[in-house]
């Protein structure tokens, strides 16, 4: 960021306006993925974003418990396993976010009266955990070969006290941020499938974050494409 843009920012702040200024920090950390690394689940993937890493496993379509059976579509169950201790309310919330996103993209009506189980295990949390969950989930669902109407990816944006947007923040950046937003974006129309926000922000900031996430999602979808191509081309 140049000095002049900094000055401009202070000017705006002085004028009582919330304005997002030049975004030189908008970048994604290095990310990696490995698919079908576990032998037992029908589909599995590990996804890492910087130091944050998540392992996902999918079972299904399989037999469903009678109490959970839905007559016209498959029952999707998402379980989030924390690294230390037992799952609590926070994990329940994350489970719900992931489940609703997956339900939106999976073609569940093709497997009525069956169960799909998606298990997400935290391996290391260094910020943007929810987006990592979602990306790992999508890769695992792809690996399991489940029919989906579209793929999805997730991007976390943090707005710090200066109004600067950071995508894919680390845990330290998350702590210093004023607002934190995670968006799940679909691959066909780049529309928002799920949003989860924390902190205060203006309408224009929200729209900016969505626009940034849509731009960043291009990179992630390209990564998905590359990894699938590499897998089926059978060339390293």
């Amino acid at each position, binding site marked *: 960021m140049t000095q002049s843009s900094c000055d401009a920012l202070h000017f705006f702040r002085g004028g009582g306006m919330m304005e997002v200024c030049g975004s030189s920090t908008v970048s994604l950390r290095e990310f990696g993925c490995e698919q079908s690394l576990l032998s037992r689940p029908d589909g599995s993937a590990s996804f890492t974003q910087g130091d944050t890493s998540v*392992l996902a496993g999918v079972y299904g379509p399989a037999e469903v418990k009678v109490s959970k059976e839905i007559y016209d579509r498959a029952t999707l169950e998402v379980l989030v396993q924390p690294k230390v201790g037992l799952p609590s309310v926070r994990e329940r919330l994350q489970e719900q976010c992931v489940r609703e996103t997956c339900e939106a993209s999976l073609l569940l009506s093709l497997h009525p009266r069956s169960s799909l189980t998606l298990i997400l295990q935290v391996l290391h949390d260094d910020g943007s955990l929810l987006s990592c969950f979602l990306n790992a989930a999508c890769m695992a669902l792809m690996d399991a070969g489940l029919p989906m109407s579209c793929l999805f990816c997730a991007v976390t944006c943090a707005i710090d006290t200066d109004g600067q947007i950071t995508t894919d923040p680390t845990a330290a950046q998350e702590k210093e941020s004023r607002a934190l937003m995670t968006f799940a974006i679909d691959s066909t129309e780049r529309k928002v499938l799920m949003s989860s926000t924390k902190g205060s922000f203006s309408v224009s900031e929200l729209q900016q974050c969505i626009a940034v996430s849509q731009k960043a999602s291009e990179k992630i979808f390209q990564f998905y494409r590359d990894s699938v191509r590499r*897998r089926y081309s059978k060339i390293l």
Partner: protein
Amino acid sequence: MKDTPLANCERDFLLKAFEEKKRLDGRQTYDYRKIKITFGTDYGCCFVDLGKTRVMAQVSCELVAPKDNRPNEGILFFNIELSPMASPVFEQGRQSELSVKLNRQLERCLRNSKCIDTESLCVVSGEKVWQIRVDVHTLNHDGNLMDAASIAAITALCHFRRPDVAIQGDDVTVYGPEERDPIPLSIYHMPISVSFSFFQQGTYLLVDPCEREERVMDGLLMIAMNKHREICSIQSSGGIMLLRDQVMRCSKIASVKVSEITDLISKALENDKKARKAGSKCGFAESIPQERITALKMEGTPVDVEGVTERASYVVQKAGTPPQTVPSPVVPLPGVGQVGEGIHSTWGMEEEEEENNISGDEEDKVIQMEVDKEDSKRGDVVEISDSEEEEVVILNPETPDKTPKSKPPSSHQKVAAKTKKKQKK
């Protein structure tokens, strides 16, 4: 979800193969599968791959009050989480027989063998000690979870560093990792569990059974031993009779296996220490193999944000202005808020009807007039103490005619309300 059953022909095939000293994966009788130990980014995080079986152990610590009968000893807590990821048979949050068995065996292997100096975990005698918690998560179940869990747990404990603590007089200061280097636990020895499976009433013996082999086995013997050839725990399950020399033979095999595994663990710890000292990246992200077609890695990329601001402002403009809010909401009294504009409240209409039924319309009017009079006499805040309810403060709005529901109940209404309550009961 139910497990897929093992067919009789599969069972017969496996047993026939054992008679011919052959195993499905081509191992010899006393061979372990390939063991791979990797570490996570933070201290006390360890992954163990035993063939296809995969577990993760994470050690964490916390300052707690000690147990009354042991005021100057730290607390060790073990938890093996049979995650549904490992096998569809495992259910979330349910203590199965297997999980109790594994937890008990791990406790006996690591806590009861006194391999960790718990007295060094004491901070203030009788008040504060460190509780060391070991969480073992199963990620993939392909047999012999116990050995994998015990290797992961002891390696994670060796790898773990707890924050440094300083005591000056009565003040206890816990230093973060930036201020002072965290200190490792003092570990006397490393007990490692080795599993033996028996087939055909103990005629055949195999080391490190895989999942298929576990399904057809008759009995299991788990020996926890350290490299000084001291047995820390021994457990036989499945209800088979073992002869003395069978147990002796198993313990001899175990001692060989344990010394091999201990060397492997020390080597892994050494490598990790070197890597951390050199400041190079370590952890799970680095351990993704690059030579597989199923894995791909991408360097950090900048995101092109051109046109983002324009797009955002376009969307905001297109969305139009939000509906006008009431410029000055009616505030009957300072410190009182109101939603909507004095329209007749439809909340609790049924209740009101009920009240009307009891008291009658005419009476209601009378009450209202009475209320009005009373209100003018009394202050703005009316406090009524109901014997059954908690204290209720009702604030009196300026226009009681418009919102009859918010008027303070008079003594008549109170009676009505009470009769209503009785009716509900």
